[in-house]
């Protein structure tokens, strides 16, 4: 191989290495949510708040919320603003989905109507906030759709653990939403690797 060729290979390799280094700098945010005055740390939404100057496209893929055995499945669903949700009825009884408000704003109330088993109806959530999902013929049923501004979100497991993946480096504000607890705010700096943020949610 001539001298020029070796230089070219060296430049290309270095560029590739630098590129790889740039990609791997996106990090994860993980942690544990503990609760005070609330029964369970499960189903708490943890998400990155809106980033000034940054706009995110809503995902094309729909999210499914099912009604099964007279229960909303999953109970809490976190979606990015602009996502379309498919409400499916898997029960052999008539169901209904409606929400009386989104984060208390009654102007955003909506009723999806009724549809039989095996069918679905879709709705695109364009407003931020939490929509309590109800069924007007089975009042004990409840679920939540939590609409957040960025694609960086997660929901806690039974132990309160969460992981938000592939967050670009930067300084962010993290928020929580919980059915029974008050919202919390926490700052986080994300670099390459994992940032650990433990949060306490209170009633």
């Amino acid at each position: 191989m001539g001298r020029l060729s070796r230089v070219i290979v060296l430049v290309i390799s270095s560029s590739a290495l630098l590129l790889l280094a740039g990609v791997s700098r996106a990090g994860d945010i993980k942690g544990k949510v503990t609760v005070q005055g609330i029964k369970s740390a499960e189903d708490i939404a943890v998400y990155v708040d809106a980033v000034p100057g940054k706009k995110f496209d809503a995902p094309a893929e729909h999210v499914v919320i099912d009604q099964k055995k007279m229960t909303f499945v999953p109970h809490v669903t976190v979606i990015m603003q602009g996502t379309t949700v498919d409400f499916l009825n898997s029960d052999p009884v008539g169901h209904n989905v409606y929400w009386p408000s989104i984060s208390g704003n009654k102007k955003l109330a909506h009723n999806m109507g009724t549809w039989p088993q095996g069918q679905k109806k879709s709705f695109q959530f364009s407003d931020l906030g939490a929509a309590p999902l109800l069924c007007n013929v089975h009042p004990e049923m409840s679920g939540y759709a939590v609409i957040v501004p960025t694609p960086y979100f997660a929901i806690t497991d039974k132990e309160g653990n969460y992981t938000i993946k592939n967050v670009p480096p930067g300084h962010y504000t993290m928020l929580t939403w919980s059915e029974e607890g008050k919202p919390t705010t926490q700052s986080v700096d994300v670099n390459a690797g994992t940032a650990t943020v433990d949060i306490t949610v209170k009633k």
Partner: protein
Amino acid sequence: MKLRASSVCMSAILIVVGTVFWILVSTPRASAIPAFSRKYQTSCSTCHNNYPELNDFGEAFKKNGFKFPKDDELFVKELPVLLGAKAQKEAFPGAIFPGEIPGSLPIAFRYSGNFSWNAKQPQALQATAFVPQTDLFVPNTFTIISAGSFGQNLAFWVDDDISAGGTGAGGGLGDGYLRYNDLGHIFHLPKNALNVRFGQFELDLPFTQARSIYPSAYDVFSETAVAQPSTTPGQTVFQTTNNSFMLGTPQRGIEFGGYPNNGNFTWSVAIVDGTNSAYGLDSSLTARNTKDVYVRVSQRFNLERDPESRNAVQAAGPSGPRDHTSIRFGAFYYHGQNQLNYGGSQFSFLGTIDEPFYRTGGDVRFKYRKMELFGVGLVGHDNNHSVDTAAQTITNAPAVTYTGGFAGSNFWIYPWLIAYMRYDFVNSPTDFANGVSEYQTRNRFSPGFQVLVRANIKVIGEYQYHWGQPYIDPATGNTLFFRPNAFVGGIDYVF
């Protein structure tokens, strides 16, 4: 029209009228079953639009033997206790056929207590049939209810008023029966075309009295046939008809029935003991040698435009499932034979006196969105005799007849706020001749409201505008009439 009558006769009439009123306001109500709420972990409003009244889903649930109309096992949150593995069916008759019982005791309780404000009585009435102007928590009823299924085909219901009227001892069994669902399957009939139940039960009336939402009973269902309520000294000629049978009283017997065609057509034939000692309150209600028969048919026309909605258990409304828009027509016929003078107890020179009777009528119910309109028309007829104790003879006498019915409407202003209006009437020439009312037709208007404070707690209010009740004016001896109007308010809760 003013009548002169002896004070003894008037007292008897007042007692009869007072008993009628007592029955009207203290009809035992066996009803909602929160045990099902617990079994399925679902709200009362899944089956009830205003408990104990059932919505379309609740009707389907009840007709299916107290199970969800489809895939019941998917919704049961309390697993039953198996009394034998399902495979034991194959071992039968070498083993007891396997069954099941509810996982936890399916018990529910209901309390209802009413406050009543009554129109002030004339003094003459106070002496013989005093009703206070205000009465707190009367009737005061505590009911225990148990119902459920023993597997796929067997269902049961028991309800008992443990205490009523504040006495603690005036309660009694309402319904207590076992039902076998879909007996027709054995004969390859469509599903639920033939069911059978036996025990004690309210007849398949067009509108239930035992599980009515109203604090007062339907007047015509409480009507009896009495030719003459009392006798006067020296009287030798007597009218015999004395039939205390009431259509609304639970009966003991066996009933065959079915709900083919998606429950749109219903039929039932019941063979019952007839008059029975309901609640042990009235010793004159005794069994007879004869058995009575009750037949009812009804056809509901589902008026939903969408075929899929028409065939579903509930219609698909724009804001959620709702009852179907529908109109239902029905007819019923009750035939019995009252028997008097067993062993010559009344007239020693006569044997048993047989007096056939019937009650027949039709009904209609229309449902549209938040409104319900309904009505019943009924004719009663009792054979009658005239006994002359002096001549020791018995001859046919004009039958004791009456007509009557009711009509009303319910309107759901909100899912928790219901307004209603009901009109009851009974046209009884015999009652009028006996001085029970001012006119031949007794009317009553009853507007009311019900507030579902919670799905299992109600506050109710009903105003009753009554017909004129007779009394003797002590000053003149003339018969005057007063309207015992009343306002009934109350609380009602189940758990």
